[in-house]
Each structure stands twice: as C-alpha cells, then as structure tokens.
C-alpha cells in the first residue's frame, strides 16, 4: 500500500493505482482525455501532466502512466505543470473548429471543460485549421472528424475493448483520422458507447441530435429492460420525451458501457417520431375515455364476472417486462381474490427452465458479469450472447482479452467479437457436450476427493462426446478446463432442453468441488423473468391450459398486465379465436400491442422512465430504476400550443401495479401491507433479506447462500423413443429485432437485421437450396416465407428462425417444430 | 327672525368655509406636486387640463371610484370611522378662526368667524389633540403590523409635540390677554406677534409641522419603512379622507399661524380677507418647501427635538415673556 502526497494531501492507495486515480480519490480531478478507467492508460494526450517533486520520478510526468509509489510528492498545481497543460490545450485547440453551438456535445464536452479550466481563451496559432471529411457511420452515430483531438479513446474502445475492427486510426502525424476504411454502418452493436467515450463531439448520437442540451435534461438513474441483464442506464428526458439513454457505471453489471439496443431502443416510450404510436389514453371498446371511467368500467365488470362465474373465471397475465412491484401486486391480487394466474410466460417450457435456473443459483456459484471478465475458461452452453444478452458478450470478451479459452456449445451460427471454439451441437446434444467437457476436466485425484453425490454425478456424465460432431477435440478442451482456475459456465434458457439449466448448475458445482473457483451465469429471457420465477408456485398453470379453458368457456375475463400473448404465442389463429370468446379483456400497457388494440378496456401504464420500479437481473441483483420524468405526449417535434392547461396531455398513465390495485376495487388487498417494499416481501420471501423497510432496494442480491437440491443424475442417453424426422425448427432471439420494447422503437428500425432462416450449408445443399433463396417452410396449414441464409458454423439438422419482425412465426402452432426436408421449398 | 338670519348666515359661512377649505386642500395637493416637481427640476403634473389644473379633479374621481377595500381581519367599524375623525378635526377647528374683518352689510355687523369662542385657543388645542385618535384608531383597526407601528409612532409624536405647541402659544395668550382668537388678532393691531415672539413662532411652526405629520416629521407614514404606516390598509376615498385631512390641517395650521403670529387678517391697503388668505398660504408653502429640502428625522431625533429642545425652550420663553411683561408693566 504505497503512501504518497499529492498537493500536500497524503493518501494511501492499493498497489498498482495510477497517480491520476489516487488524486481522484483525494478529490483532485487531474485533466485527462485519453485516460479512461475501462480502457486504461496510454499517455497519448499528455493532458494529465503533473509535477513529481520527490520520489522515483522527477519533473513533469503523465500521472496516468505512473503507478503510485511510496515517497512520491506530487504537485498538480506547479506552475510548470499548469503551463504545460495549458499548452497542450492550445495544441489541441489549434485545429478544433468553432462549432460548439452546432455541436451536440456542447454542454457535456470534456474538451470544453478542460479548455475553460485551463484558461485558454484566445487562439494564438497563426496557421489555418486542418479539416477532414466526415463519414457515414450508420443510423446511430454521427461523425464530425474536424472536432477530433486524437485521444485514441474510440479506436481503443472499439478495437480493443469491444473487439470490432472496422473503425480505427488512419494516416499519421497531424493528418491522423479516425474512421472506417470505407464509409458504412458500424459493424459493432456496441457502437453507441463511442458517444460516451469520445471526450468531444466527434461521435454524437443521431436519435438525440440537435434536440436538447445536457443542462436541459431531466436525468435519473434507470435500468435497461431490453434484455435480462439489467444494465444500468441514465434516462435523459426533456419536453416530456426521453431524449437519450446513457450508460451508468456499475462495476458489477455493465461497467461503463451499454449495447446499442439498450441505448437507442428507448423511443417506444415517446410513441415514435410522431408520438402517435404509443396508446396515451384509456379506452373502452376502442373509444377514448377518462382513466376514472376505464377504471370504474373494468372494476365493475370484474366484480360482476366474479359474482356470476366465480373468481376463477378471471385470469391475470404478466410478462417479463413487468416491474417487480407490478409482479408482486399481480401475485397478491391473484392470491387474495382467487383469480387464476398470474401467468408470466406463454411458453411453459421456458418458464420451467427459468424456474429451475433460478432455483439452482446460490451466492457461492452465481457470478456477476464483472466476475465473468476475470474467468479463465468460459463455457457458453445454449446461448447466443450477442443476440440474447449483448453486454454479456462484452464481458466474455474481456475474459478473452486476458487469454481465457471460450467454448460455445450451441447449434446456431454464433458470431462473437472474440476468438472462441464453437461446438455446433443440436439442443439435445448440448447437455452431453457440456457433461463430457466437464467430466474430462476432473482428474482422477480430484475425483477421489469428491463426496459421494458429486462422485456419482461425475461418473454419470457422458464421456467423450462431441468430437465427431464439431471437429473440435473435447478432451483437449477438457485438459485446458482442468488447468483453469476460474471457469464460468454461461447457460442459456432459450433453445436448451428443460434439464439443461440444472445440469449446468451441477457442472459448475462439480467444478467448484474439484477445487476451482467456478461460476455460473444464466441468460434469461426477459428483464424480470428472474423475479417471476421466484413469485410463482410450482403448480402454476401454463398459458396453453388457460387458453383451452377460455375455449371451454370457463374463463370469462383476462387481465393482461403489460403482456402481449399475440407476440409471444406461436398459434395466432387459435389465440385470436379464444380471446374473442372472452367477456372482458383488460389490457394495461404502454406499448401499442395487438392485445391493446383488441382490449375491451385499455388502461395506459407507465414505462420504466415514468415511474420508480425495481428489476432483478439474472444473478439475482435487485436494481432500482428511478423515475426520469412525469411523461405525457412529448412536446418536441411540433410547435407547442399557446394553451394554459392544468393537466398534461397523455399524462394519464400510472404504474401498472397502481392500476391493478385500483381495478381490484378492494382496499383489503393492501391490508397489512403498508409499503411497496412490504408488498414485495410478502409475496417474495427472498426479498425479505434485502431490508424491505429500506425500499427502494438497490444492488442487493436475493439469492440464497446455498441452493437446494443438487447433483441430479443426468440422463446418460437421450430418449431414443420416436425421434421425429426432418429438421428441428428453433425459435431464437435476435438483437434489435425480437425483444418486446425494442420492436416498438422506431429508432432501431434502421438496423433491424434482415429476416432470415438459418440452415447448415450442407443441409441446404441436400435440399437443393442456396444462400439468399426465398424459401417457404410448410407448416400444417399455411407456410412461412423467408429468405434463407446458410452457414457452415452451425449444427446440422436444425433450422433457426429468429422471432423477429418481418417473419410471421406465429403460424408455427408450437414453440418448436419438426419440418420434413421436402416441406422446405424454394419459391 | 334674527336667529333665522343668524342660522342662514351660519350655514352660509359653514358652506363657504368648508368648500373653500376643500378646494384649497385639493389644489394644495396640485400645488405641492407642482412645486415639488420644480424643486426637483421637473415639471410635475401637467397632463390633465392646462398646466395640470384638472389633476385634483382626476384624483378625486379616481379616489372615489376605486375599490373601497376593508381587510378581512380589520375592526370594521373603527376602520371605517378613523379617516372621518382625521378629516373632521381640522374642519371643526376652522369654526373658531376669524378669517376677515367684520363685514357690515346693511348696518348689520357680520363677524367673519363662524363662532367667536372666548376660549377659542383652548378649543383649538383640544381639538388638535383629537386628531391623534384618527391615526391611532385607523392604524390599530387595520390589524396590520405596519399600520400598528405607524399608529404608535403617530400617537407618541402627536402627544409630544402638542405639549410644546401649547406652551409656545402661552406667551401669545399672555400678550393678547385673551383666549379668543378674534381678540388675539386684534391684539396684534400694532405689531404682529412674530416680531414680539419669534421663539414662540419657531416652536409653533415646528410643532405644527409635526402635528400635521409632514416631512420631516412623517414618521407615522414613512412609506419606505412602514409602507404607509397607519394608512397602509386604506384605499379609495377612505384613503382620500386621510389625505384630505392632512392637507386641510395644513391649511388650518397655516390659518392659526396667521392668527397667532402674523396678525390675522390685518394688513394695509388690500382687503382683509386677501391678507388672511395670503398669510394662511405662506405656511403650507413653507411646509412644501421643507418637504423638498429636509430628510425624515430618525425616531429618537424626533423625540429628542420635542422633549429636550422645544419643550425647555418654550418654558424658558414663557418665563422670559412673563418677566418682561412684569418688568414692562403691560
């Protein structure tokens, strides 16, 4: 622990701390441009120069390049250092354009701040300014290269941190240029971070372009709900609209960064560019009414139905984008009023997978994304990180940068921004690949040391599997796994078998018992699926059962709380028919979903930006999102009228839990429950430990110290029974285009990947198909028409169909299907 | 018959005196504003009518049609009567002021005074003390801090200066040998008392200024500390009454000064009424001039001046006057 003196203040810092960080701990902000904690020190900008008066270094030195050492005496205010920093600013400003007024960075520009603080005000350089031509970098990032101060942050982030190569430095000397070799959209789905990382206005985000200045923004800490990871964000609102979303530093979750889907997918809350897409007002039978009328209508209808048909004729649907508050309220209402449900997932299999995943997590084995970064061996089983949980891919990349070995066991044509070994196993084989890999890594000596349950489990694992299928030697990988100290298993819950999450947990457990510091991380399907699994009992009815009860007429009313079965359920026709038999369909939502359009009563609810809400991420971390703004029809884009009103147009929305409480029309629901924290704790015992009285809870983890049940004997052989013939059609997620809030965000429309059906090239060749063909996939009645994309880097015998806009996958009748070869025809 | 004639005459005198007084008061406002303007190198009101001559009319209309506002917490009855007291007191004082030589119409001598009380001066002093009620009650009834403070200041100030005012008049009575104002005027046939009693005159003048709450003695109002003091809460014609009261009392004090020290209506050549009016006007004009010249006194200075300077000087003056009279054998 070196002790040093900075500006007459003494501080003791951990070994390896840079002097610039030590100063920051003392509250001394040494100016910097190229230094960034996530990217490290490179000493390019020379802005952090300070004077070292005593110690191993002397004179002007860059504080970002030097580790704090004992006996250092550092002055940041020494005249020589101040003069030098002033000169650096002058150098940087000799070519910086005079365009702060038309630059979106103005007001949040590090260069502006440092220039002002250095006192440089007058341009003395007699020469002319250097100029550059800009490039088109896609629909998210605007490029204005004249403003560049060449700190290399962008290329270091883009190439080193996020692992994409298409943006970087060109030319030398003061002709240095940061851009792409050819104009075009940035390939990285993490490109939005360039905006945050750039200390000046070279990269500015286009969705917020010219709309607002930083000082006019209402800012609050928020949480991203686009995927399950729960990345921390800052919501920025102005004129009743969310203008932009920025990454919020959370060392355990997302670090400093955010993926583009989370960053630019916020526009659903504004209702698109014309604000017309979001349903702002309550409706009864499609006609606009006041909230009070809609509340009264739904609650009277509900009590009527409950009186006539009994409370079990009412069913409540939730979803994976409900806040924890809404989920708890739903759960409590169903329990106290005798309603059916709540049903969180339309796919019961996914529900069971999530549930078993959540049950198996314990604090000894669950890792955060940050901990993945320090893994030295990562097994990704049945998860397509880039598409299902983009920031997790970045975390794994950091491990990969530290020379970790990455193995992906997945049938899909995975692409990730780092080197990895791909074992293209079909869903049924994932378990056996994983099992044999883990079994191979347990040495004989280690096996002896295990207790009987673990030993039995280990022995039951299949040996040597996967070599033939992948052409990758599993034993070789197993040897590397054996040598590793901190392996992490990342397990998906999408395409895998129902038993896989539990097997992954057992494998991680086994690795841990064999002396490694093993970790486990699940990729879950939605922002709040972790908490929904904690809230529902094991005997919860599946959506399909509910549907048949509706068809039989025993269910008369359905409350869809931010839930859209039309999006999630694979049989649109059946759903259509069933829902039209209902007496009452109450939709509570902020998205213009199909369910909202068909609802007999619609009540607008608040988005995550408009209310205080809580979400639980896949490692059990409870995170609180604060309200950013009050909401209402945004002002921007049109001339605001000269009307004095005492209400906000479109400001009827309220949190879904509040609406639910109000339509339940029973104060007794909240009896003995005083606060939201107590409500949640009453429904979810795990929440109790976080200190419900201190609601809102933030950053506490609600996973047990030790999970119940482990080492379930794996099936050694796959069920041989009737193996269906043909191809297994798998539904998968795709970045930007398939998750619920994102598909309603018009900002993302420009980057939706082209709809495609993925198929192994040899399979395609066997079927006489080639890349780029439009094919028709025959289903029972009707068919899906889609473009074919072939790949060699995927499993044979599967078809991958993204659940994205532009593909009518809701004709599938079920969540996966077996398609005979001859049913795939070229058209 | 005589008493009917007397009544008619009395009523006529009353009407004339009151309307002249009000007219004078109204135009005194204009004159003050004009003069103040000129003292400050500006024009003063010049928009309504030629030279702003209709300004008092406009002001009057404005005051009458303005909302008469009574604060919710005010003592309504007292609040409403207080301005009337302020306005009435100087009017009643005029009853004893002789404003001209006796007029003889058809052999009948009509005294140019409404009523010649033989204790006229006592009457004047007694009534002058009543004015404090208007201020004190108005301020108290408003139920406002500013008003109350103004009222307290007003009571203290008026009571203090009444003393020196009364004492300053003692030599006058001693010289005239009568309390009747007519007698006092007549006593100045040879020499106005200002020449005989300059000290009395100065004390009386200062006290008069203080009695009429004029700058530099406008502590009860002092708009920059007390927002208007006792009349903070008043508006419309009720405020107008305070205003009128102040100006009428200014004129009345002028008339009293004329009577006590300047020889009343007496003067060469010109008609006596004219002399009286001229002398009467001198004092208000001087007041205005003072207002343009002097700043407001501090409260302790005000008390100091009243009790520690004017009062002893007045007493000494009485003694000296008495001594001289004894010595001279008057």
């Amino acid at each position, binding site marked *: 622990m070196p002790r040093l003196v900075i500006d007459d203040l003494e501080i003791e810092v951990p070994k390896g701390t840079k002097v610039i960080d030590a100063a920051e701990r003392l509250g001394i902000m040494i100016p910097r441009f190229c230094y960034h904690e996530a990217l490290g020190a490179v000493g*390019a*900008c*020379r802005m952090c120069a300070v004077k070292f008066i005593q110690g191993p270094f002397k004179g002007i030195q860059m504080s970002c390049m030097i580790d704090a050492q004992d006996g250092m005496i550092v002055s940041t205010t020494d005249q020589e250092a101040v003069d030098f920093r002033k000169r650096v600013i002058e*150098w940087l400003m*000799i070519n910086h354009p005079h365009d702060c007024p038309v630059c979106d960075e103005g007001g949040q520009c590090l260069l502006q701040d440092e220039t002002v603080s250095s006192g440089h005000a007058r341009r003395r350089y007699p020469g002319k300014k250097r100029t550059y031509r800009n490039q088109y970098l896609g629909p998210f990032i605007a490029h204005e290269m004249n403003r560049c101060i060449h700190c290399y942050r962008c290329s270091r982030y883009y190439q080193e941190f996020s692992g994409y190569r298409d943006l970087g430095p060109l030319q030398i*000397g003061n002709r240095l240029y940061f851009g792409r070799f050819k104009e075009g959209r940035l390939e990285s789905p993490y490109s939005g971070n360039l905006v945050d990382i750039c200390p000046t206005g070279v990269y500015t985000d286009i969705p917020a372009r010219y709309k607002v200045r930083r000082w006019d923004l209402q800012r609050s800490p928020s949480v991203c709900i686009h995927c399950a990871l729960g990345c921390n964000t800052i919501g920025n609102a102005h004129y009743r609209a969310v203008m932009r979303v920025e990454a919020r530093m959370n060392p355990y979750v997302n670090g400093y960064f955010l993926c583009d889907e989370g960053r630019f997918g916020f526009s659903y809350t504004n209702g698109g560019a014309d604000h017309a897409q979001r349903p702002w007002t309550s409706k009864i039978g499609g006609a606009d009414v006041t909230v009070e009328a809609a509340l009264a209508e739904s609650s009277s209808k509900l009590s009527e139905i409950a009186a006539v048909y009994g409370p079990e004729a009412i069913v409540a649907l939730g979803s994976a984008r409900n806040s924890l508050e809404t989920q708890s309220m739903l759960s409590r209402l169903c329990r106290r009023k005798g309603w059916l449900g709540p049903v969180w997932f339309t796919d019961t299999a996914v529900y069971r997978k999530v549930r078993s995943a959540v049950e198996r997590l314990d604090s000894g084995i669950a890792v955060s994304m940050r901990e993945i970064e320090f893994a030295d061996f990562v097994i990704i089983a049945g998860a397509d990180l880039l598409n299902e949980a983009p920031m997790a891919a970045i975390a794994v990349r950091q491990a990969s940068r530290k020379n970790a070995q990455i193995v992906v066991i997945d049938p899909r044509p995975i692409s990730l921004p780092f080197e990895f070994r791909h074992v293209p196993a079909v869903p049924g084989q994932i378990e056996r690949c994983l099992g044999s890999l883990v079994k191979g890594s347990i040495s004989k000596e280690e096996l002896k040391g295990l207790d009987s349950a673990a030993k039995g489990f280990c022995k039951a694992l299949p040996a040597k599997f996967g070599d033939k299928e992948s052409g990758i030697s599993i034993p070789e990988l197993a040897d590397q796994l054996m040598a590793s100290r901190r392996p992490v298993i990342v397990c998906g819950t999408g395409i895998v078998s129902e038993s896989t999450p539990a097997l992954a947990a057992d494998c991680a457990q086994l690795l841990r018992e064999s002396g490694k510091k093993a970790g486990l991380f699940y990729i879950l399907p939605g922002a709040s699926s972790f908490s929904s699994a904690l809230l529902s009992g094991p005997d919860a009815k599946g959506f399909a059962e509910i549907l048949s009860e509706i068809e039989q007429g025993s269910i008369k009313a359905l409350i869809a709380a931010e839930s859209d079965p039309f999006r999630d359920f694979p049989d649109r026709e059946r759903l259509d028919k069933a829902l039209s038999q209902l007496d009452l369909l109450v939709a509570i939502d902020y998205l213009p979903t199909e369910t909202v359009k068909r609802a007999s009563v619609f009540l607008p609810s608040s988005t995550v930006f408009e209310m205080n809400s809580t979400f639980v991420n896949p490692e059990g971390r409870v995170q609180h999102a604060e309200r950013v703004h009050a909401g209402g029809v945004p002002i921007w884009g049109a001339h605001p009228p000269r009307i004095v009103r005492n209400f906000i147009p479109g400001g009827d929305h309220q949190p879904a839990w509040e609406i639910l409480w109000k339509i339940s029309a029973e104060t007794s629901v909240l009896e003995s429950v005083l606060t939201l924290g107590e409500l949640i704790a009453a429904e979810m015992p795990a929440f109790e430990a976080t200190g419900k009285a201190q609601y809102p809870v933030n950053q506490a983890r609600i996973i047990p110290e030790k999970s119940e049940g482990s080492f379930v004997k794996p099936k050694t052989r796959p069920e041989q029974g009737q193996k269906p013939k043909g191809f297994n059609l798998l539904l998968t997620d795709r970045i930007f285009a398939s998750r619920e809030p994102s598909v309603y965000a018009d900002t993302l429309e420009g980057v939706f990947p082209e709809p495609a059906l993925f198929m192994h090239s040899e399979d395609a060749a066997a079927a006489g198909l080639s890349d780029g063909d439009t094919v028709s996939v025959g289903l029972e009645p009707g068919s899906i028409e889609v473009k074919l994309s072939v790949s060699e880097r995927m499993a044979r015998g599967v078809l991958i169909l993204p659940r994205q806009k532009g593909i009518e996958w809701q004709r599938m009748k079920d969540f996966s299907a077996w398609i005979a070869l001859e049913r795939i025809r070229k058209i | 018959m005589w008493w009917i004639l007397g009544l008619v005459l009395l009523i006529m005198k009353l009407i004339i005196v009151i309307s002249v007084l009000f007219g004078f008061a109204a135009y005194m406002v204009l004159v003050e504003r004009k003069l103040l303007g000129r003292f400050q190198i500006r024009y003063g009101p010049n928009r309504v009518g030629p030279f702003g001559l209709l300004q008092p009319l406009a002001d009057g209309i404005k005051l009458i049609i303005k909302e008469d506002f009574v604060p919710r917490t005010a003592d309504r009855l007292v609040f409403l009567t207080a301005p009337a007291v302020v306005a009435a007191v100087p009017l009643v004082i005029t009853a004893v002021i002789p404003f001209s030589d006796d007029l003889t119409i058809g052999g009948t001598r009509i005294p140019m005074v409404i009523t010649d009380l033989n204790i006229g001066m006592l009457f004047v002093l007694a009534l002058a003390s009543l004015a404090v009620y208007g201020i004190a009650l108005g301020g108290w009834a408003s139920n406002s801090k500013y008003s109350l403070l103004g009222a307290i200041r007003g009571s203290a100030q008026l009571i203090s200066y009444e003393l020196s005012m009364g004492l300053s008049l003692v030599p006058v009575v001693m010289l005239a040998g009568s309390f009747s104002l007519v007698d006092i005027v007549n006593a100045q046939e040879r020499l106005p008392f200002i020449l005989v009693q300059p000290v009395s005159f100065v004390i009386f003048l200062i006290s008069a200024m203080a009695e009429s709450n004029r700058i530099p003695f406008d502590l009860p109002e002092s708009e920059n500390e007390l927002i208007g003091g006792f009349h903070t809460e008043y508006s419309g014609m009720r405020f107008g009454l305070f205003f009128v009261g102040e100006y009428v009392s200014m004129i009345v004090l002028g008339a009293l000064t004329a009577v006590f020290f300047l020889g009343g209506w007496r003067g060469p050549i010109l008609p006596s009424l004219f002399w009286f009016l001229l002398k009467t006007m001198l004092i208000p004009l001087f007041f205005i001039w003072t207002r343009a010249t002097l700043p407001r006194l501090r409260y302790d200075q005000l008390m100091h001046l009243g009790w520690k300077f004017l009062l002893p000087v007045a007493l000494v003056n009485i003694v000296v006057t008495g001594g001289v009279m004894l010595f001279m054998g008057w």
Partner: protein
Amino acid sequence: MAQPLVLFKNRHPNRAATLDEYKQSGGYEALQKFVGGKVDPGEVIRLVDESGLRGRGGAGFPAGKKWEAVPKDAPFPRYLVANADEMEPGTFKDRILLHTDPHCIIEGMILAAYAFSATKGFFFVRPSYDSSAVIMERELEVARGAGFLGKNILGSGYSFDIVVHRSGGRYICGEATALLNAIMGKRPNPIKPPPYPTEKGLWDRPTVVNNVETLACVPHILRNGPQWFKDLAITPKGAGTKLFCVSGKVNSPGAEELPMGTPLREIIEKHFGGMIPGSEFKACLPGGASTRFLTRDHYDVPMDFEDLKAIGNRLGTAAIMIFDQKTCMVATAHNLMRFFARESCGWCTPCREGLPYMRELLWLIENGEGKEEYIDTLRSMCKQVWNSYCALAPGAAEPVISLLDFFEDEVREHIRLKGCPFHAKAGN
C-alpha cells in the same frame, strides 16, 4: 595516421563483398569460435560489454547492457531485430554498409542472437532500400548454404534464422518499439516502457533491437578482443570506429569509417576534402537531423558520444550535415521541422500538434510574417515537447533549440527585415 578500416575493409566500388571475400578478411571466425565452440553466451556479452560498444543508431545505449537485460529465465522464442530503417535526414551509413559487407551484419546478428539465445531474427529495412533488401536476402541464402544460419548452426545445436522484413516506410518505424509494432502488423506507435522490449517485445517475448552498424561491429570485437576495439578510438572514453556520413558544402561528401573521437575539423578538412571554394563553415548538425547545431566555436570538438554530450549535443548517427555562410538557418530549421512534423506518428499531442505549430511559426518567420513573440513561443514549446511520448519530438526540437541559442540574431533579423536576408525560398 593510417585509417584503421574495420567495417569498410571489404569495400569495393559498386558491389558488395562476397562471402569468400568476407571470410578471407577473417569473417565468420568469431562465429566458429564462439558458436561453433559453444562458448557460454555470457562470455559474448561480457566481451562486448568490455569493448564499450555503444549503439550506433542514435541513442548510444551500450549494446552489451541491452543483451544483458534479457532475463535469463525469459520464455522462448526470443527475437533479435536488426534496425535498418534508416530515415534520419542526412544519414546513409547503413545503406553503404549493407552494400559493402552484408555478411559482416549477418555474422553480427547471429552472434548477437547467440548472446541471448534468440531464435529468430528480423532484418527490418525500409522500402526505399529495396536493393539492400535484395542483397540481404541473397546473402542470407548464401549464409544458410554455408551452414552459418538456420537449424543447428555449425553443429552447435543452436538454431537461428533471419527474415528480411520490408517496412511500410515511415521515420517513426526507426524507433525501436514502434518498429516492433510495425513487425507485428500494428500501427507503428511507440510503446513507452516498461515493459522494455527486452522483457516483452514482439508478441510479448523478449526482443532486442540493434542498429545494423552496431551488429556489424560485434564479429570484429569478438575476433580481436575488446581492448583492440577500445584502442581503435582516439578519445579514451570512445570505442571502435564510426561510419561518418558527411553531406553539405564539402568537397567530397560521402561516408567514411573513422575512429571514434576524430575531431570535427579533421573530419571536414582531412577526410572529406574541406569546404568547397567560396564556402565558409557556419554550422553543422553532428548526428542527423535530431541533434543540435555545432557552430564555428565547436570546430575542434572530438566526435564522440561523451565529448558531444559534454557540450550538450549528441553524436546521434554521426551524419554530419554542413552548412556554409550562405545558408539561412531559419530555413534549415523549418525544413527539418517540416520533416519531423510530417513524420510524427500522431500518437501524442506535443508531437502531433506541437511540431506543426513550430513549423508554422518558423515558416512565418522565414517568410517575413514573424513576430517577436514567436521566439518566446518557440523557446517554450521546444522545452515542452520534451514531455512527449517518445523521443521524436524532443529530437525534432533540438535544431530549433540550437537555432535560438546560436542564431537568435539571425532569427531577429528575419523579423526585423520582414523577410529572409538570404533570399532563399523555403518551401512549406
């Protein structure tokens, strides 16, 4: 005194010495003795260390010390890089050496590699030296054929091979760490140590970068002993001979091998034919563009690392550029600054933005638009560019520092006259 020829002893006009010629002059004897004889590599380092051989590339770092810096337990493979990216203005010694005696370099590389057990050598040459690269490639093949190179050299069990790497051709690639980046296919930005390349260089393996001339000295030292090498020099602190490249206003410019420590006067007047008629010595750059001017006052200074350091200058590459009384020093400095500003890699601010700034000011002074305050700005900037990332910017500032030290009057004259008194046009 006869010129002791060491590196240039096989100099033939218009052709390089062959293997046989080199062998005849004692070539590869050292290799036979040390590698063939399996002498302890430490002995090689010790001998070179004792000889006082200092890097000929400009910095003058003792060669033996550099090899010693490779940790004994460092991982393999280890790399040796011969730096022939010679782009310092006025310097052409490596080129002449390459065209004179390539085997001398090859042997030097093998011996140096042996000293720290390198397994692979890179011969880094700039693209405009393509003919040298061709010679090198040809002679490497010859050496391989003779068994001096490749697997199991001379049956010693020691394997080493050399690859010719043609660079993209930028001045900054001559900087050792930037050069390593260039070999790895990255942007040739310098890397500030630590870690030093001798610990983590190419692909995180220990790497030694030596100048071609340095390496060429090694066989001779090992063959003749360190004391012999030390005695070659005139000055007591110097060691060996040095290739001096002289250009400018002398009668016979070119490259000559002279003992270390030969005085400047002797170099100019004796070995390079003196100043051309009508020219008078005004100033010279002693070691390439990134050194300070030597003026008439320094005419007798011995050209040696230590002696030049004593007067605040550097020997650099010993490329002497000579200017006569008709040369405008401002234009000279501007011309040099133009070069450095263009060749900055663009990594750090003082170099990327500061050098063009100084270039602009020099240009304005030369062009008659100068102001008095520019002199102060230049002075302070010369000091401030020392805080840059690598040595390029401080080197670039050297001529300007000495311009302001020795020729301030001339600069002021420019400003006073609003133009160049020499009427020489300096391009921008």
